[in-house]
C-alpha cells in the first residue's frame, strides 16, 4: 500500500514548504460518462499531488472537466480509472457508506450557492457535519459556537439563512466546512454569487485559513480570484495544461 510512504513520496511539482506532507494524491484519474451506447471521457488521466497547507486554484474554461474533478476530489463521484488517495486512504474503491464517512470527516465543502439548509438556523447548519460524525450535542454546540464567532456571526446563530446576506450565508458555509476540521477545504466558485465587497471578505477569510495552515482547493474561472492562491492548476480538455506555483 502506498499510503505508508506518501509523505516521503517524490513531489511532482515544486514544494513550497519543504517536507510538507501530501494530503491528497490523484493518480491518472480518468472519468467516462455513459449515456446509453454513447460514452464520453471527460478526464483523460490527471495526476496531481496536494500538499498540506497548500492554497490551490483549479482553473479552466467551461467543459474542461473542472466540475468533474471537483466532484471526484469531493468523493461525491468515483473515477472510472485511476486512484485517489485522501490522507492515507484510497477512495477509488470505497463503498457508498465509506465515501459518506470520508466526505463528512475529511472534507469541507463551500459551494457557489452556499447550500445552507433553509429550515435550520445558523448554528444548526454549522453543526450538521458534526451530527453525521456522531459528535455529542454539547461538543457540537461548543464547536459550532466557536466557529460562528470566528466567522463573525456569533450574534446571528439563531437566524435562518434567508435572514442573512449572501456574504453572511457564505461565511456560515465556511464555518460549516471547518466544523469537522477537514483535511481539505473544497470551494467551488465561492464568490460567484457575491458582490465584490462580500467576495473580498470571503477571500480574506480564505487567506486567513491559509495562514492557519489549512489546505484549500478552489475551483474558479476568475484569474483575479486565483491571484490570491499560490498554486494554479489549469485544465484543458480533461488534462492538466499547466501547474504553476506563485509565491505570494
Amino acid at each position, binding site marked *: 500500500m502506498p499510503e505508508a510512504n506518501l509523505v516521503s513520496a517524490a513531489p511532482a511539482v515544486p514544494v513550497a514548504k519543504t517536507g510538507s506532507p501530501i494530503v491528497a494524491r490523484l493518480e491518472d484519474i480518468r472519468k467516462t460518462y455513459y449515456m446509453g451506447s454513447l460514452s464520453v471521457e471527460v478526464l483523460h488521466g490527471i495526476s496531481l499531488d496536494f500538499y*498540506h*497547507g497548500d492554497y490551490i486554484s483549479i482553473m479552466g474554461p467551461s467543459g474542461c472537466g473542472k466540475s468533474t474533478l471537483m*466532484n471526484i476530489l*469531493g468523493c*461525491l*463521484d468515483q473515477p472510472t480509472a485511476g486512484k485517489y488517495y485522501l490522507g492515507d486512504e484510497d477512495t477509488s474503491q470505497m463503498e*457508498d*457508506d465509506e465515501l*459518506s*464517512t470520508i*466526505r*463528512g*470527516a475529511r472534507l469541507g*465543502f463551500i*459551494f457557489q450557492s452556499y*447550500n*445552507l*439548509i*433553509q*429550515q*435550520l438556523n445558523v448554528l444548526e447548519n454549522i453543526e*450538521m*457535519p458534526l*451530527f*453525521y*460524525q*456522531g*459528535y*455529542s*450535542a454539547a*461538543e457540537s454546540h461548543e*464547536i459550532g459556537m466557536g466557529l460562528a464567532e*470566528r*466567522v*463573525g456571526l456569533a450574534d446571528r446563530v439563531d437566524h435562518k439563512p434567508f435572514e442573512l446576506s449572501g456574504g453572511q450565508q457564505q461565511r456560515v458555509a465556511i464555518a*460549516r466546512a*471547518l466544523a*469537522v*476540521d477537514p*483535511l481539505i477545504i473544497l470551494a467551488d466558485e465561492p464568490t460567484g454569487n457575491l458582490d465584490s465587497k462580500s467576495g473580498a*471578505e470571503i477571500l*480574506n*477569510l480564505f487567506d*486567513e*485559513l491559509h495562514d*492557519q*495552515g*489549512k*489546505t484549500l482547493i478552489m475551483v474558479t474561472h476568475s484569474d483575479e480570484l486565483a491571484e490570491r492562491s499560490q498554486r494554479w492548476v489549469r485544465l484543458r480538455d480533461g488534462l492538466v495544461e499547466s501547474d504553476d506555483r506563485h509565491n505570494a
Partner: protein
Amino acid sequence: MTDITLNPPVPRQTGSNRAKPGAGFNFVRFKKITQVGIKSIYANSLRSLLTVLGIVIGVAAVIAMLAVSEGASFEAQQQFRDLGASNILLKSVKPAEVEESSSRGFGPPQAMVYGLTMADINTIRNSIPGISNVIASRIVKKNVWNQGISMNTDVVGTSVDYPSSRNYNLRAGRFFSESEMRDHANVVVLSDEVANTLFLIDNPLGESIKIDSDYYNVIGIMESEGFSNLGQNQAGSSNAAPSRIFIPFTSSKTRFGETTTRQTAGGIESETVELHEAIIQVDNQESVIEVGEIIEQIVQRRHKNVDYTIEIPLALLRQAEESALRDQIVAGAIAGISLLVGGIGIMNIMLASVTERTREIGIRRALGAKKRDIITQFLIEAVILSGVGGLIGVVLGIIIPFVISAFWGMTTIVTPVAPILAFSISALIGVIFGIYPSMRAADMDPVEALRHE
C-alpha cells in the same frame, strides 16, 4: 476579521469518546433527526395537515365505529343478562294451526286450549336435577282503574321469587309474600309506568286499584328499566308494552280464571292458557344450555302442537357476542381501508417532499450523511406525520361517540384497546408507506442532487 484563529490541523476525532456514527441506536441522534423532521413538517404545515387528514379520518372512524358497535352489542348483551344467565324461559304461544282451524269453524267460538301447563312444569321439575326454582306466571291483559283513570296493562300473576329471578328491583314498598300467595290475596305491585299513569299526584302505596270488579291493595312499585322486550309475551298480544303489574299467581287464577275472552275484529275469541311463562332457574350456570335442551325434549314430547317457545338467555348472549365480534371485524375492515387510503396519501406527499428537497438531500450527503441517515430522516418524518394524524384521530374518535350518544341516545363504548390499536396501525402505516419515498431519497446521486434547483 484578522483575529480569527483556527484549530491546528490535528484531526479532532482522536481522543474523542463519541459514539461511532450509525452504530446501534443513539437516542440523541434520534431526537435530533426527529427535531429536524418536525421542522420540515412545520415548514409546510398546511400541506402536512391535508396529508394527515386521511389518517385522521381513518383512525377516528376505527375508534368511532368500534365504539358504536361495542355499545350496540353491550346493549344487546345487557338485555340477555337481564333475563338471567342461569335462567331458562318457557313461554306459551298461540300455535299457528289452531288459529286457522278455529277461524274456519262454524258455531259458537270454541275456547282455544294451548300453552304450558302446571303438569309440564312438575314433570320438568321432577325429571331434571339441578333446577333450583321454577317461577310460573300467568299474564293477562286487563284494564286497571284508579278512580276515573284507567289503563290497559299486563297483569302478571306470579310467585314471590319473580323479581329476584329477573333482576328487577323494587323502587318502593315490597313484593307480595308467601302468605299472601297462599291466601289468594288482593295485593298488587305496580311498575313505574302504571304507577305514574294511575297516580298522578298521590303516593300509590297503600291506595287501591280496581281490576274487573275487584280492588287490589298497592304494596310496591317496581323499576321498569329492567323490563326487556324479550321477556314479554302477553296473552294474545304481540305488541310489547313495558307496563306491567304483578299480583300473586293464586289470585290471578281465582279472579280471572284460565279462559280469557277478547273482542276482535272477527268476533269473539277466547282461549284457555294455564301458564303464559315459566322461568326455570338452574343451579349451575354452566349446565344451562344442556338443561335447556332436555327441557325442550320433554316439552316437545308432551305437546302435540308447537305452542311454546324456549329461550335460553345464555345461548342468546353467546350468539350476541358472536355477532358483535362479526360486527367489529366488519367495522375494523372498513376503517382499515380508510387507513390504507390515508397511508397512500402520506406516501404521495412524501414523494413530493423528496423531490422538493432533492437539494437538501444532496447537501446532507455531501456533508457526510450515509444513505441510511437519509432513510431514517424521511422515515421519521413519515412516522411523525402519521403519528400526529393518528393522535388527532384518536381525540376525534373519542369525541365522536360522545356526540353520537348525546344527540342520538345510542350507547357507545370506547374500549381502551380501540385507540391504542388504531394509533399503532397509523404509526405502522407511516413506516410502511414511508419506506419507498425514503429509499428514493437515499438512492439519489449526490452530485445530481446538489445540482438540482
